């Protein structure tokens, strides 16, 4: 497996002709089960084929179990300098419902160990909207959580995925999750508590103290290029070595054994390559960018759309104006962003903006000629440094 990860990293870096790597993220599944030596090997390969900055953020996603705790030190030695823990809840009953194999106590111990190893670079994931959870129990859980947090918190609402045991239990009525109004209040309560505790919300689900934002994830929201390595990994980059000028969305083969076979044969296990049109890219810029509290600056937008500014694109539909009048969306000299209330309604706001963008694109704009497309990607290449996402489901 390690060999395949190295091989694919090498191949994809070559295809992308990326010169500088700003961050690496080992995530998806349970990468902390992989031996620290694998992490070291992949990092080594990456630095052989591109410039891996000395201060590059290298994150590992970890389940806060005792087994993981014992290996944290080795991971640091292998090159990890940031940990992200799936703590999820401080209630053992909740952890059981979620099917986690750690206890609240184990989580606390693991997080505290990590904080001594990487002070200021430990993130924890917490979850609300769990079966049987009330607003009061959520608020008291938050109270307990805040003191053990380091400088970064990711806050998620439980989403029931079709096909899971939890989904079945809820649809059969064995368990019940809080309603929309309750989870809205829970989200609001968490945002307030975290801000009171000194955390700044910088994205829909992410909060940081002392500017400890995740460089890697900011890359996604700023629509930078990234390379996905490992079974089921996703990437978005321009395959320059293949003569590409447009960005591609790439997905690696999901089944580990098939993926390995493909890497052996072809050097990589890319299952799907989709060229992103200029419109698709702008759509991603919009959708991802508005997740950040800072939104999309005029400058940032111009990188991707030098021809038409945000105002021009959004004035096509009058319902965009309605959103502004209701105070959900802000468009000013800084750029485009959601208000505090608007951020919680982002998924209702985005379709309106996407329609406006699409209408603008089809009505006002001539189809992009190859020259303009080429010009754009050149600029992108010099501007956007490329954080590859390392994924390992081993």
């Amino acid at each position, binding site marked *: 497996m390690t060999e395949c990860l190295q091989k694919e990293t090498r191949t994809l870096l070559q295809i992308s002709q990326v010169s500088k790597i700003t961050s690496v993220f080992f995530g*998806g599944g349970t990468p902390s089960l992989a031996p620290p030596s694998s992490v070291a090997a992949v990092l080594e390969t990456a630095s052989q084929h591109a410039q891996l900055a000395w201060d590059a953020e290298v994150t590992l996603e970890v389940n806060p179990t005792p087994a993981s705790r014992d290996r944290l030190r080795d991971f640091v030695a292998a090159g990890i300098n940031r940990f992200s823990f799936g703590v999820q809840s401080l209630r053992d009953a909740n952890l059981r419902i979620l099917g986690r194999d750690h206890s609240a106590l184990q989580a606390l111990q693991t997080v505290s160990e990590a904080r001594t190893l990487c002070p200021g670079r430990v993130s924890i994931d917490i979850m609300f909207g769990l079966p049987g959870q009330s607003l009061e129990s959520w608020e008291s859980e938050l109270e307990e959580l805040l003191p053990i947090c380091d400088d970064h918190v990711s*806050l*998620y*609402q439980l*989403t029931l995925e079709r096909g899971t045991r939890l989904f079945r239990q809820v649809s059969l009525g064995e368990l019940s999750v809080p309603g*929309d*109004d309750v*989870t*809205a*209040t829970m*989200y*609001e309560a968490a945002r307030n508590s975290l801000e009171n505790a000194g955390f700044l919300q910088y994205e*829909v*689900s992410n909060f940081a103290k002392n500017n400890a934002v995740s460089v890697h*994830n900011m890359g*996604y*929201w700023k629509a930078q290029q*990234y390379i*996905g390595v490992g079974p*089921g*990994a*996703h*990437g*978005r980059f321009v395959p320059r070595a293949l003569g590409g000028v447009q960005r591609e*969305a790439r*997905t690696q083969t999901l089944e580990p054994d098939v993926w390995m076979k493909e890497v052996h044969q072809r050097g990589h296990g890319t299952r799907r390559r989709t060229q992103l049109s200029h419109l*698709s890219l702008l*759509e*991603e810029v919009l*959708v*991802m960018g508005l*997740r950040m509290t800072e939104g999309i600056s005029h400058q940032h937008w111009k990188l991707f759309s030098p021809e038409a500014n945000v105002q021009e694109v959004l004035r096509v539909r009058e319902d965009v104006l*309605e*959103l502004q009048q*209701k105070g*959900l969306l802000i468009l000013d000299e800084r750029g485009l962003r959601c208000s505090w*209330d608007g*951020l*919680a*309604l*982002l*998924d*209702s*706001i*985005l*379709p*309106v903006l*996407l*329609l406006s963008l*699409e209408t603008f694109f089809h009505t006002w704009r001539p189809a992009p000629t190859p020259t303009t497309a080429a010009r754009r990607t050149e600029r992108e290449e010099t501007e956007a440094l490329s954080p590859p*996402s390392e*994924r390992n489901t081993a």
Partner: protein
Amino acid sequence: MQMLRAISTLLSCAGRVRDVKICRIKRRSDGYTKTCTLMRHRWMKSARVATLCATTRELCSSAGKNIDMSKFPVDRIRNFSIIAHIDHGKSTLADRLLEMTGAIAKTERNKQVLDKLQVERERGITVKAQTASLFYQHNGQTYLLNLIDTPGHVDFNYEVSRSLSACQGVLLIVDANQGIQAQTVANFYLAFEAQLTIIPVINKIDLKNAEPDRVEKQIEKVFDIPKEECIRISAKLGTNVDQVLQEVVKRIPPPTANVEEPFKALVFDSTFDHYRGVVANIALFGGQVTKGDRIVSAHLGKTYEVNELGVLRPDEHPTERLYAGQVGYVIAGMKEVKDAQIGDTLHLHTFPVEPLPGFTPAKSMVFAGMYPMDQSEYTTLRRAVEKLTLNDSSVTVQKDSSLALGAGWRLGFLGLLHMEVFNQRLEQEYNASVIITAPTVPYKATLLSAKLIKEYGEEEVTIINPAQFPDKSQVVEYQEPMVVGTIIAPDEFTGKIMSLCLSRRAVQKNMVYIDDHRVMMKYLFPLNEIVVDFYDELKSMSSGYASFDYEDAGYQPAELIKIDFLLNGKPVEELTTIVHKDRAYTTGKAMCEKLKDSIPRQMFEIAVQAAIGSKIIARETIKAYRKNVLAKCYGGDVTRKMKLLKKQAEGKKKMRRIGNVEVPKDAFMNVLKRK
């Protein structure tokens, strides 16, 4: 609705029907196929499908030459129909009669031979009348018995009376277990009013729980027919079926027609065939007709030449001639269905006759909007509707368009079953998926001012579309259509049924015990009160034992009002509804609740209101949602997230904006469609 559904029993051999359709090669793709393709198929079991159509004609004509219709003078002809409540065994008896007279081979598979439409076989009902000429030996003589099959439901009374006009007698079938049911009564009166000989037949005597004695008493009591006249049979097993044929010959009088008189025939049915034009079913009231004769339709005065004529056995069987008293078909180069108007009289070009009394055209009693599920299917659907209506002139079609549902039609039907059947045929025979709106009834308004009368062209206007409802200030009086409903049920349900009827603004006309335990009640109903769910409710409260049927009872003055529905103060045109004053509040409230459940929450609050004029009578609030955002969105989630958002954006395009409220098409469908 169930009314219709109830009908039947016999399981269809749908597979065979399909075979038949295919081998008829679309020629009669517009349904109402007249002749029995099924049977050709059976006769020619070994024939290859491809050659079937070509050879059939020859076979028929050569066989036809063997039948000399002049051998059947009027006194050896009997024209009759079978009438019954659904499921009482009409089609099974018809199958037996056909077998016994050799019209069809006797096999296990003869099930509802005369019911050719898929919908007929599935629902066990007859929608379109069929005809079969039977040759029957009695006392050494061959008789020509013309069985004119009728639709079993009052919605198709028009068809029934058409069929009955060509008959002198009927077999009234009653189930030995269920006894007289609502449709039995309705059908009896149709035959009675037409002064036909009625032969009561008690069917299904083979059933374990058959009670023929009780049923005979019911017949005596309700229809005033001596119980000695009842024939007890089992159509399924063939028991006493021969006696039925004997009694047909003995009791039913021959038609009164004279072969010496000039040719005079009633068109009692017609179908359209793309290759041969109109096929008209005729009953000869006088004279004779032969190939090459030049005939005139009295109604239009157009002249045609007879190309082909013959009897139906039940497939078309060409003959040389047809004589007075006989029933058959004629093809005479008529290009359109309206060339052979049902009820029209045909006569020879050279001998004009006094036309027979025709029929009053069928009147639409129930209206519903019909729209394609997707506007791109409009043209396909239009073609399907055109084809279906070609052979069902009782459906009225009017173009309509709704802001929410797009372009469509407002269709008028004879009744609810008729509407159901039409819809089902569209789906089954034309593979069209449609939205049918809740049915409405035609109201009338008597206008007040001379100016308005001039504007509308008449003093009394019929309102089909609520949008055209004239304001109360301009109207002397509104009227609504009424029906007399017959309900027959075990007496233990009487109380419940009475309160149900009362809640539907019905007035009791009478109530009689038809035997020790069964009650027949007659109520005057506003039609509007029974069009939606009355029958379902009646069935469920009586554990399925109550039967219901209704007949037209004209119009009555009514206090009608128009309710508008508003979303954040903006009226939604397509929801405007006309109701009786007493129903305004409940209807308004129910619609508001439905709207509330169907419109998704949005970023702001939505007021859903029902209003009469400027007065709000009901209100519901759809609260704004406060959170709608996906928690996690990192590199691996982008593709999926984009897909989802693009889909939502696409969906938004299809929504109808009323003020600032976006209403998905589904919401309108939920509110407007029939349950």
